Structure formats: C-alpha cells, structure tokens
C-alpha cells in the first residue's frame, strides 16, 4: 500500500506493507536514523516520535495508521542547521552521555513543553517515564528540560 504523510514538514510518499512499523519506515525507507530501535517493545522510548504532536513509540505504531498525519522526528528539531533550545541545553547540561536515549528524550520533552510550557519537576519526570537512560541518572535530563521551560520564549509571556 502507498503511505502518504508529512515528516518534519515535508510530504513523503512510500510503498509499505500493511503491517509495517512506523520505526522501520522512518529508518529504512526514509533514512531517518536519528530515531533509535532499543527494546522494540514500547518499554525504553528510544524510538519516540511525535504524531500530530503526541509522543508515541514508533516501534509499536503501524505505519498505515499515520496516513495523512504529521510526524516529527529528532531530525525535525533543528532550525536552519542550528540545534533548538532543548538540544543545546541537553549538550550544555551533560544530559547526554552515550546518546542512545537522547533522540527519544528530546521528543518526549518537546511534546511536554508544547502542551505545558511551565511543567513541574514531577511533571517532567512523568513525561519521560517511558524513556530509559542507563547513563545519566535522569537528574541532568530533568534539569535541562526545566531550564528550557524557564527560558522566555517568543509568543510566551514570561511568568
């Protein structure tokens, strides 16, 4: 079957099997290797992407279900070749060590901040509970997300 969908703002159209996983379509058909395959069972969150703004595990989503919808992967965060605020803060705060969980963490954090511009630490922890990190101990990641949330952003009144 033919899948037509928008990935990082660009419409794409690829031939897929009816039961193909979104993860395989992103990595193998579209060459977007930023989205990682970890556990392949929805436990680790390394494959987190956004579908119409909602964080999902691409390893569990049938690609056919994203027909006509908007997908965002970690490759879609940078603007004009420059990392976005979350990516910069992850680097600056030591929220990245081996880096395998980072794309998924960034996407979960992006989904959170788009819905809740001023999350508490508990809300941040809840938002990334489905993303496992075996290196950092999570504190630096939560610090980074909290720091970005505290930054004044265009279109957001500082509180």
């Amino acid at each position, binding site marked *: *079957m033919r899948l037509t969908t928008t990935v990082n703002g660009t419409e794409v159209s690829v031939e897929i*099997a*009816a*039961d193909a*996983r979104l993860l395989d379509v992103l990595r193998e058909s579209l060459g977007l290797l930023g989205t990682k395959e970890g556990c*392949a*069972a*929805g*436990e680790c*969150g390394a494959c*987190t992407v956004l579908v119409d703004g*909602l*964080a*999902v*595990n691409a*390893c*569990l*989503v*049938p690609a*056919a*279900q994203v*027909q006509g919808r908007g997908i965002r992967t970690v490759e879609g965060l940078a603007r004009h070749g420059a990392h976005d605020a979350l990516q910069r803060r992850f680097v600056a705060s030591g929220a990245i060590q081996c880096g395998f969980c980072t794309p998924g963490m960034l996407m*979960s954090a992006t*989904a959170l901040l788009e819905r809740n511009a001023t999350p508490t630490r508990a809300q941040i922890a*809840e*938002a990334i*509970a*489905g*993303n496992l990190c075996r290196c950092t101990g999570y504190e630096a990641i939560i610090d980074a997300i909290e720091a970005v949330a505290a930054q004044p952003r265009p279109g957001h009144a500082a509180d």
Partner: protein
Amino acid sequence: MPPTELLAPRDQRELVAALARTTDASRLVAGATDWMLGRRAGGNPPDLLIDLSHLHGFRAVGCADRRIRVGALSTCSQLQCDPVLATHARCLAQAAARVGSVQIRNVATIGGNVANASPCADLVTALVALEATATVIDGAGRATERPIAQLFASAGGSALRRDEAILEFAFAGAHPDRRSGFAKLGVRSSVAVARLNAALVVDLDPDGATIAAARLAIGSLAPAAFLAGEVAAPLVGTRIDAACPEEFAHRCLRLVDERIPERSSRAYKRLAIRGLAADLWSAAGAGTP
C-alpha cells in the same frame, strides 16, 4: 504468502462489512500496543487487518439516560483527564493514568485493553468494579450488549469471536454521591504491568455518609478481574468516615489466601495486598466525610 490486506473502516457500516470478510487468519488492531508485540513474536502475517483507529464515532465519553458511555477507541490519555469520568467514575480515569507511559497511553485504547484480556489489564479491573457492559457488533451487523465478565473465557483470554468488535462500554453513572478509586502494584512505579490491581466503587445514601453500595474488583489474582463481594459487602450500612481500613485490608488478605493458596506468588501478594488496600482506600476517598 499473499500480502496482508488492510481495511480501515470509518463508521459502523464499513466496520460490519469488514468484519463480514474475516477468516481465522484475520486480525483487528486499535492502538496496536499489544497487537504489535504479538505480531513481532512471530507467526504468519494476517490475511486481513482491520484497523479500528479511524472509527472516530467511538472515541468519546458521554452521559445519557443516567448511563455513562465510553467509546471503545477512547485512548488512555483521553480517559485520564476526562471531566465526566473525573466526576462519576474516578477509578476508570485513575486506571487509565496508570497504564504504561505517556507514549503508550497516547495510543492504547480501552477496547484493546479489554479485548486483549490480560489478567492484569488495568482498565478491565475498573470496568468490572463499575459493573460495565460492552456493546459488541458482529459481521452480520448484530449488536449485543453484554456484561463485561462475558467477554472473557473462563480459562483466560478473550471470549470474542473473530468477527466481533467492541463498540463501546456503558455503566450507571448518575449516582449523586459516588466515591471510587483505583490502585496498582508493579515492579516499579510507572511503565509496569500490575502484579496486583484493584478498583473500589462506593455509593453513599442521600445522607451523604452511609454506604449504600460497595463493589471491589481485583485483577491479577485470576484469569480475569473479578468482583470480590465478600470484601466489599461488609462496608454496606457503615458510615464512610467510620469504616475500618484495617478490617478492609484484612478481608483483602483473606481473599488472596482463598484464591491462590498454591501459587508461588502468594507470599508476596499477601504482603502486597495490604499496601494496595491502603492505597485504594485513599484513592477512593474512603474514610473521609
């Protein structure tokens, strides 16, 4: 092997037409959080895959004729913050909030939770406590309303036929003073399958204090969640602020002894259920006027 054919019905009529074409090798999928794991475990691809996720008419929660109706395609993320459930069926909203992670809850549906028929399914336990019914439709277009317990085979697993789909759940909801709550224990605090889960529903008399009806459902102690009448019944007639949580916990413990006398997990579950009973008591707001 011919490639899998995909059908994505958008309304009940298209769904019935799709169900009419199913064979033993056909499958239904909603949020796919259980289905994809099964698919990855191996076996032949289905001949026909019916994707229920486009049935937008069965994605909402509503209240009519003093019954609350929950579309089978409603996701856990939707249910956990639904205002109708927050008022009338808090145990279901709380159960939805405890399923997996944000990523899982964003797609996992209540229909999939029930049809998957796992003994530890969190939403099933809440639906059993609410004495919910399910409307099921088949490939001949026949819709039947069944008590939730009839959706599970006695030896475990689903009792749905291959050409049947759940459309919605319903339960009495207009009780003016209802307390309900859900609690679960897993190996970690989130993204954990329940080792034990429970939902408590308590309806108060018009005096706002005396318990008129009480129902407790327990999951992970049997092939499917069940109503534990012997634990809940003694609550009836007592005042909500005078009911004794320790006695309630003790009755829960006796239930573990009776239900799984031989199972290796009994020692753990005997200890765990006391904590679970305490969590449930406060989740339901029992013990407070």
